[in-house]
């Protein structure tokens, strides 16, 4: 039913859209070829946010990226939120819709963070059911993003890449590969980010995310990286992107910069580095 290609975003640089960049993006977008928005910021009734988005969708391919659907939640999906999403996706007609392998709502309480879940047969069934429900409601294939992890669950029965691969097989969904999240999780668990990429179903990837992270330490003084989207992408993550693209081929690449958002030239320069990475991909 949703066996269309993973996504129709162009394999070019994109950025997370911030309203303060509106005029700059319209007058001087290069090298950015598409934009991503957080769905929840465009669920008001009207006003400037929707007016800007309407205008931008006439100029750029759009990715609608949800942060509040709680696909990994134990409870059922919020029907009101799914209806809002359907309305937004309906009128903005994005090239891609994506959400996270995470939960954020419990007992109708919204916790405003991407919370982790154990990887078990039971959670696999639940997440697959939720993805089915979203894809049916939206009438399109969605992409699911790998999380950044700070802890693991003793009860997990499979690896994250096994879990994601099984979801793709069960639901036909695509994947959004966040290589910064891969680097953050691998550092936090002392595992190999390259091994994670090797195990990742790259054929299902419709988009790649890059962003900055913060550095902290855990209970034992070991490095604990925190996904913060408030800084430039670090060199090891750029290297991991090259490693990934060499195996996956060109993909749509997005710079996520959500906190301490810089002026447009700085963000555009960061996006230009993704263009360089695409240019290095072997033909």
């Amino acid at each position, binding site marked *: 039913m949703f066996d269309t290609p993973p996504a129709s975003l162009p394999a070019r640089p994109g950025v997370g859209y911030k309203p303060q960049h509106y005029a700059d993006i319209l007058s001087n977008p290069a090298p950015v070829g598409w934009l991503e928005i957080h769905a929840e910021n465009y669920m008001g009734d009207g006003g400037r946010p929707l007016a800007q988005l309407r205008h931008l969708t006439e100029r750029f391919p759009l990715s609608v990226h949800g942060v509040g659907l709680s696909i990994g939640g134990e409870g059922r999906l919020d029907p009101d939120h799914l209806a809002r999403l359907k309305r937004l996706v309906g009128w903005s007609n994005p090239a891609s819709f994506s959400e996270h392998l995470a939960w954020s709502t419990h007992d109708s309480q919204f916790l405003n963070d991407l919370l982790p879940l154990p990887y078990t047969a039971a959670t696999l069934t639940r997440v697959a059911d939720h993805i089915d429900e979203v894809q049916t409601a939206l009438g399109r294939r969605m992409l699911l993003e790998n999380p950044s992890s700070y802890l*693991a669950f003793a009860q997990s029965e499979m690896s994250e890449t096994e879990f994601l691969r099984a979801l793709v097989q069960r639901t036909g969904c695509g994947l959004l590969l966040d290589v910064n999240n891969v680097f953050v999780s691998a550092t*936090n668990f002392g595992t190999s980010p390259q091994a994670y990429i090797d195990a990742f179903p790259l054929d299902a990837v419709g988009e790649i995310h890059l962003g900055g992270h913060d550095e*902290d330490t855990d209970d034992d003084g070991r490095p*604990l990286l925190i996904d913060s989207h408030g800084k430039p992408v670090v060199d090891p993550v750029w290297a991991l992107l090259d490693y990934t693209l060499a195996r996956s081929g060109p993909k749509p690449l997005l710079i996520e910069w959500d906190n301490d958002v810089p002026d447009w030239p700085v963000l555009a320069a960061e996006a230009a580095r993704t263009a360089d990475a695409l240019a290095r991909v072997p033909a």
Partner: protein
Amino acid sequence: MTGQSEFAAALLDPARATPPGLTDGSGAPTTRRYDVYRNNVTVSLADALESAFPVVRKLVGEAFFRAMAQVFVRAHPPRSPLMMFYGADMPGFLEGFAPVAKLPYLPDVARLELALRQSYHAADCVPLDPAALGQIAPERLGDVRFIFAPAVHLLRSDWPIHGIWRANMVDGSPAPAMQPETVLVTRPAYDPDIAPLDTQAATFVATLMSGEPLTAALEAARGGFDPGPVLGLLLTSGALTALTPGD
């Protein structure tokens, strides 16, 4: 076995222990790693409140606001993923929050900030063409009722909320005089605007907003009231979207 109830409950409650069954990836139990989520939740919700209530924040100070936000998010956690509408319970919370009892105007300042935010996200409307009024026969003018744009709010306060708002948001504004004020929030194009109304104009607009005709609004405003200036404000600010002539 860690259920989401257990995981969620400790996020906003520092007195609760770290949920069991969480490890550092090698099997060792962890607290600091769980605390990353605790910190993310608390900080992101406090950030949302800060952007919603810049004037309240200025009035109580940054450090006090952050501490108060922690109390608020535990008492009133979000019920929706739309962070742009989080904090609707703030005025009521402030009314009962003893540490701010000496700032009795704070709840109404929060109401004004909520009204401005709601106005910013309200549905777009085509403003009423002032010429439409000219097409009403003079003897029927008193029967006219107006439809207001959803971006319009009228707030009456025992406190100078307009003066307080301006003094904190607009450089060079005078200190507010301690008097009751009524504020009209409108949204010409995309930026909400606020205007103080005197008692008569406030009653006039409130009566019109309740769906009563012009005659009733003029009677409510009482003698000597010239509706011209406030009608002009309503028309130029896009506050009115339609009129219905009387039967």
